[in-house]
């Protein structure tokens, strides 16, 4: 990339740009394809991406040189994804799933509550079991409050782990890749530890089981 950014003249710059594309265009196209709806949208996004990378004397590419903590390909994928998203939002607007997301979050939160309640042998405290029973509903609310407090006491990394697993529904293999766990086994082990700590925290707050 230094040949591209330090090119003395336009001819040298074009040669260097061609070499850059030969090396990285598959990765850029891969990114555009993931976000594109169809072939034409993908190609439009790819063309937009190349244009943006070239713009203002390769301003975006120069930003990597000043912040080289990561590998260039990792950085390029992140930047390319953002540019493609900008392009698609400009064309098609933002996805309007914010309200649905709220409903999803509640559903996933209930799944975590159900899981913990099951482990505490408090399955009768789950939402579907308390629908017609005011006393059980109170206990379920208590469980939710205790859970919120217990989640707040976790480390940021552990909260992220739970979000990726229960809210985003990712398999352990993908979580391992994102968070830097050595193997999926390490993800399961950490999850079990965190869930165990949550159960202990709930017991400390008086959530022992279904009996009042």
């Amino acid at each position, binding site marked *: 990339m230094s040949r591209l950014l330090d090119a003395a003249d336009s001819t040298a710059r074009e040669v260097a740009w061609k070499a850059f594309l030969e090396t990285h265009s598959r*990765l850029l196209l891969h990114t555009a394809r993931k976000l594109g709806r169809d*072939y034409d949208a993908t190609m439009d996004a790819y063309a937009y991406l190349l244009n943006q990378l070239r713009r203002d004397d390769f301003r975006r590419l120069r930003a990597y040189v000043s912040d080289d903590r*990561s590998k260039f390909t*990792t950085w390029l*994928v*992140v930047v390319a994804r953002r540019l493609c998203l900008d392009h698609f939002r400009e064309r098609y607007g933002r996805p309007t799933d914010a309200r649905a997301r709220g409903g999803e979050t509640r559903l996933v939160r209930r799944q975590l509550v159900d899981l913990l309640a099951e482990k505490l042998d408090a399955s009768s405290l789950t939402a579907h079991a308390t629908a017609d029973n005011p006393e059980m509903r109170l206990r379920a609310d208590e469980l939710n409050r205790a859970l919120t407090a217990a989640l707040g006491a976790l480390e*940021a990394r552990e909260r992220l782990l739970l*979000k990726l697993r229960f809210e985003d529904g990712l398999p352990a293999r993908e979580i391992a890749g*994102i968070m*830097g766990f050595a193997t999926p086994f390490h993800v399961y082990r950490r999850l079990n530890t965190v869930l165990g700590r949550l159960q202990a925290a709930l017991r400390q707050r008086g959530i022992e089981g279904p009996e009042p």
Partner: protein
Amino acid sequence: MRHLESGEVAAYLDNALAPADRSRIEAHAGECDECRAELIEAEWLLSTRPRVRRWYVPAGAVAAAAAVILLLWARPVSGPARSSGYREPVVTTSVAPAIVAPRGTATAARLLVWTAVPSADRYRLTLFDETGSVVWETQTTDTTALLPDSMRLRPGTNYLWKVEAQTGWNRWVASDLVEFSLVPPRP
């Protein structure tokens, strides 16, 4: 709430951050759906990216292969010549699509079928008459194409057709050119 910068996302995914920075990013990602989605998608893109396949042979194996070849040169070789154990690095290429039907003598030819090519974005089909003129062309993402009703093939006339698969930016891989003709109707 400030979203994560590109450099922060990339450095996090590459495990290149100091513990304090890592913890800060994890705290943010735990609360911010957008940034967390970015981490998820970027990691997926990186783990599924196309790779260039190369052949690497350790130096010792190269020397051993060269020694074997030198020894073999000392005696006459009756079979076909063998290539050395060392190959130039190669770039992965796509398999070409293969024509399934129609080919040879066919009773019907409205539906044209070919084999799929992994990671092909689309296919371009070209039908020629026996003079080599293009009589029909179409593009599709499927591995079949239906001749339009307006297109009438003449029985007993030879036609040729081929399919090209697009496997990358301006990159096409073509099938063989295959000939077929429709069986003339019985008198």
